[in-house]
């Protein structure tokens, strides 16, 4: 054993050596950085930057290949219409993924709530506003069920929503009796359900209220994530739930709120869906689950949670929309559109891995 005197001398000695080496501790100063480092820092700080650059590059590419037909205001507004449903679902999906979860049930919830809205208005004969509200509440309840299974029973979100995807879809087939409600029937009794498909013409572009609603929702959720304590808690919960708990955040309540909000957003997507296709079909929106995840991933939100931005998802949805539209206008076979989207996903995740490194 060493005597305390010796120990003290040793302490002083080894620290003197370390101090003599110079350098700073905890001065929060940025070291000298290379261009690549700067770029990395930039993308790290602004996750929306990468998908925005990809979007601008895609627009530039298709403009030069196809030219006027692509840049026509009508065509550009068509792209916006085409991404509206996925955009709204993507907002819901972004919130879930920011908490390090995933929601495979968004598409099923959208179809189920669209059927509820349609039948409440057409079959039950409720005023269309009431039918819409019941649909929104039903969406909230589906989210509450997902949230309860995730927080109370500690089941992984992937498994929970894989299960509820099937359950909600089965309920949808049962409740709809696999029958489509025709567009004319809805027009006759519940024109409000078609409001999202109504368009206004500006300079040759056809903007639907659904698209404007989507943009409005992006702004609202952006504000909630960026400017409220709830938003900070969503990021902290996804980033490191144990730390968040110790810092005083009730992570289960945060998760619950996120799932409920996501459910309501899916019901809003159902409203947009009815406006876009006119009828209410229990078979609509089959691919919406995976498309919403695609938009989030291409939008630069990390599947590991705690990192990403809501407008990234808008950019991600638009990137997919622009590629599909541009390739279609260029006369490329549909299968190559799918191929391109697949490649984009892999590149996006690869870029995310690089950006996530500190």
């Amino acid at each position, binding site marked *: 054993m060493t005597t305390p005197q010796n*120990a003290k001398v040793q302490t002083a000695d080894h620290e003197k050596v370390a101090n003599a080496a110079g*350098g700073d501790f905890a001065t929060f100063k940025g070291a000298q950085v290379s261009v690549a480092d700067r770029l990395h820092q930039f993308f790290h700080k602004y996750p929306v930057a990468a998908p925005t650059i990809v979007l601008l590059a895609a627009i530039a590419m298709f403009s030069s290949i196809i030219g006027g037909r692509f840049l026509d205001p009508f065509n550009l507004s068509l792209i916006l219409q085409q991404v509206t449903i996925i955009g709204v679902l993507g907002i819901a999906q972004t919130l879930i993924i920011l908490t390090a979860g995933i929601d495979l049930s968004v598409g099923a919830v959208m179809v189920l709530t669209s059927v509820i809205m349609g039948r409440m208005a057409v079959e039950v004969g409720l005023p269309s506003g009431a039918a819409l509200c019941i649909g929104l509440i039903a969406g909230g309840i589906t989210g509450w069920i997902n949230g309860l299974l995730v927080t109370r029973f500690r089941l992984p979100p992937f498994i929970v929503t894989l299960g509820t995807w099937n359950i909600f879809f089965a309920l949808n087939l049962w409740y709809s009796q696999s029958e489509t409600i025709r567009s004319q029937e809805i027009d006759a009794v519940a024109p409000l359900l078609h409001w999202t498909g109504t368009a206004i013409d500006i300079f040759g572009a056809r903007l639907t209220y659904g698209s404007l609603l989507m943009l409005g929702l992006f702004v609202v959720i952006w504000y909630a994530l960026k400017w409220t304590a709830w938003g*900070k808690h969503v990021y902290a919960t996804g980033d490191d739930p144990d730390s968040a708990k110790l810092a005083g955040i009730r992570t289960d309540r945060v998760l619950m709120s996120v799932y409920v909000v996501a459910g309501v957003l899916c019901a809003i997507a159902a409203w947009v869906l009815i406006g876009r296709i006119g009828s209410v079909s229990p078979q609509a929106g089959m691919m919406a689950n995976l498309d919403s995840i695609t938009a989030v991933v291409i939008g630069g939100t990390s599947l590991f949670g705690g990192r990403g931005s809501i407008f990234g998802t808008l950019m991600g949805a638009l990137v997919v929309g622009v590629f599909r539209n541009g390739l279609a206008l260029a006369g490329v076979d549909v299968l190559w559109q799918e191929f391109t989207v697949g490649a984009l996903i892999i590149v996006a995740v690869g870029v995310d891995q690089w950006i996530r490194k500190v």
Partner: protein
Amino acid sequence: MTTDKRIVFQARGLVKRYGHVTAIDHTDFDLYAGEVLAIIGDNGAGKSSLIKALSGALVPDEGEITLDGKPIHFKSPMDARALGIETVYQNLAVSPSLDIADNMFLGRERRRPGILGSVFRMLDKKGMHDEAKAKLAELGLLTIQNINQAVETLSGGQRQGVAVARAAAFARHVVIMDEPTAALGVKESRRVLNLINDVRAKGLPVILISHNMPHVFEVADRIHIHRLGKRIAIVKPDTHTMSEAVAIMTGALNPEDHPAGAYAA
């Protein structure tokens, strides 16, 4: 040391059992105003359980805890925080992707005054940033431009600095630090030890849990030695040697048989 003899934080006869294991066995605990009290003990001695009981992370089966003479019953770490007891956890409890100010105010964000705050729940970002800056500056941890930096871009010692600054900024009664130097290099440890002294200089008592004897003997006013679930001795750095403290901690010495200074060279 300017330690007065007022007891701030006290526990009597604390017990915590997990099945057949008794993690805390009728232990006492005293913290005086303005002192740095180190808690040392072997692995499994029950230090962590004691600290959890004092920071609200576990509810003891028996015994009572008083803060400024008033009995308190923590049900969660939130209760302890509400009473001005802040803990710097070993894992720091910071969110890497959030920035420094966000982390300092995590779980107690401030909103803007007026309708922006009450209806739109808008955060007072500027106010929080300014205060975070001031708190860090107070502890000598800052060059001003980078308060918006994400915590993940900081070094281990810098993160520790943020966690300590957060605790020091919000503690009104006690700061608890669990192994604050365990993951740090020599220079970073030095800086954290200075931070502990700074916190004491602000008049806040500090409970320091550490395995590092030189650090404990350097900053602690008193040392609480924990063994087999209870406090078996309190020693002072100027009356006992490190060897004696370690011997008591491991059971090689019976503290009653070896009064202060017996083994001093």
